[in-house]
């Protein structure tokens, strides 16, 4: 039986590595598989990917995994050290189990990260490619707006937005997205400028294709890989900004177990009860590191300058 499974696996592998793809789907799958094989050889990137998958699983199964309710206060057992009873990572100032709060907090972190990762690069991609392809005064106007956003320190600008919109996770996400799109726009514009003059764009112009089709179907696919890389590298920064907003009390609101807010809450006890602030700090560090490693690996695989060879 295992032999049958083995040959089937081998068959799939051959199918994916076939020299002559037989359908559109086949060709696309084969290209993906090639990239996957290249990524798989990068041990560090795979470690990063592993951590992220673990975080996603944790976020999904948090209610099952968490030993305690993250919101239940137990003032008799406040600020207990690591390994106290069933509180493996100790308790915080209100006697809540830190491990459980971390597990539930991963949901908030992923929520923020996913939303920002969707909103900011897409905004940047649209602005950057239009600016680069159309050129002229459109380019000047869009790029000056981008520069204005770039001129402010990210956190300060995010603070201003949150202050205007009101505190809360959704607004924090919005504020972070609004402050992090300019670099993506810059990248997308630079890529577009090099692609715009190339022969294959002229060739499709000669088929009578309009700018909308050229931008979305011919330029975007070439910009996306460099944006994906940049996004994964920036994710660490996004988590930290979110944590920073949480720390300042402008992001997630208590009693929400957002990691930044947890650090903020543990700040008062940092000298006597170090674990309260340190544990969420380690969680942020791990996830940031994972994104960085994955981003680095993806760059090696997806960088058009490399894969064009």
């Amino acid at each position, binding site marked *: 039986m295992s032999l049958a499974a083995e040959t089937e696996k081998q068959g799939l592998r051959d199918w994916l590595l076939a020299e002559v793809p037989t359908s*559109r789907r086949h060709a696309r799958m084969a290209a993906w598989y090639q990239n996957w094989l290249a990524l798989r050889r990068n041990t560090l990137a795979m470690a990063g990917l592993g951590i992220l998958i673990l975080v996603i699983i944790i976020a999904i199964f948090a209610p099952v995994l968490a030993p305690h309710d993250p919101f239940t206060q137990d003032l008799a057992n406040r600020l207990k050290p690591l390994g106290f009873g069933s509180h493996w990572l100790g308790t915080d100032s209100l006697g809540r189990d830190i491990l459980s709060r971390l597990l539930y907090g991963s949901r908030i972190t992923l929520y923020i990260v996913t939303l920002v990762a969707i909103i900011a690069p897409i905004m940047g991609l649209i602005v950057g490619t239009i600016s680069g392809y159309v050129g002229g005064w459109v380019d000047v106007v869009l790029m000056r707006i981008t520069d204005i956003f770039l001129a402010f320190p990210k956190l300060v600008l995010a603070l201003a937005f949150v202050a205007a919109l009101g505190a809360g996770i959704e607004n924090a996400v919005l504020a972070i997205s609004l402050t992090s799109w300019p670099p993506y726009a810059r990248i997308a514009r630079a890529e577009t400028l090099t692609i715009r003059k190339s*022969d*294959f764009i002229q*060739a499709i112009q000669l088929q009578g294709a309009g700018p909308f089709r050229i931008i979305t179907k011919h330029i975007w*696919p070439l910009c996306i890989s460099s944006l994906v890389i940049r996004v994964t590298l920036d994710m660490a920064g996004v988590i930290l900004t979110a944590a920073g907003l949480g720390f300042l009390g402008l992001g997630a609101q208590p009693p929400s177990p957002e990691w930044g807010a947890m650090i903020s809450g543990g700040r008062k006890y940092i000298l006597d009860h170090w674990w309260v602030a340190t544990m969420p700090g380690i969680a942020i560090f791990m996830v940031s590191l994972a994104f960085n490693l994955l981003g680095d690996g993806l760059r090696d695989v997806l960088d058009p300058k490399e894969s064009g060879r």
Partner: protein
Amino acid sequence: MNALELVDLNVWFGEGSDRVDAVKSVSFSVKQGDSFGLVGESGSGKSTVLRAITGLVPNCSGSILVDQKELGTGRSKRFYKTVQMVFQDPYASLHPRHTVDRVLSETLQLHGFKEIDTKIPKLLDDVGLGASFRFRYPHQLSGGQRQRVAIARALAPEPEILLLDEPTSALDVSVQAEILNLLCELRAEHHLTYLMVSHDLSVVGHMCDNVAVMQHGELVEMMTVDKMRNQQADHPYSKHLLESSARYRS
């Protein structure tokens, strides 16, 4: 009947003191079914003439007539259905992330063709590639195969005029022979009119019936290929070109 006619074509880049004249009052005409060669060295403006015809240059004056109808500043869908172009570098003229199938089907779609799935294998067949190439990416193809795909793309709208911008200069000699043979066959089969730009006199001599020599943006001489083959140029620059080409291949 003239398939293509240029009258007093000027192309320039930049304005004021930065103005560079790339093409200076060039006029010539290409008869239907003819193959016309434009030769010159780099910077002579020969490729710019092609780009002006396709509407890819910013500034130009003079008139361009296709099928005896004058073109305006813009180019219509109908124009692109009549006139197509094959680029010099097959490594740059295909989108690196698009399969052969996608390249051809998008072209067919843009020109409003139905029955795309039956047309693509036929196009591939026409350029000497089997159907097995249909779902490959450019990086899985050799230079000659890529150029065949580019030719298939140019043939897809069933054009009357094909502009060839140094179609073989990026290829090996033996592959060049294959592509030139293919282009000759396609011309006979589809009754195409060619306007070919090249720096290689022997390639133009093989492919074309009439030749125009360009230097510094000006058209200095027009002659038949037989005259060129017998080294009977009149203008000193064309003579010089012919001589160095003959010495080069001696």
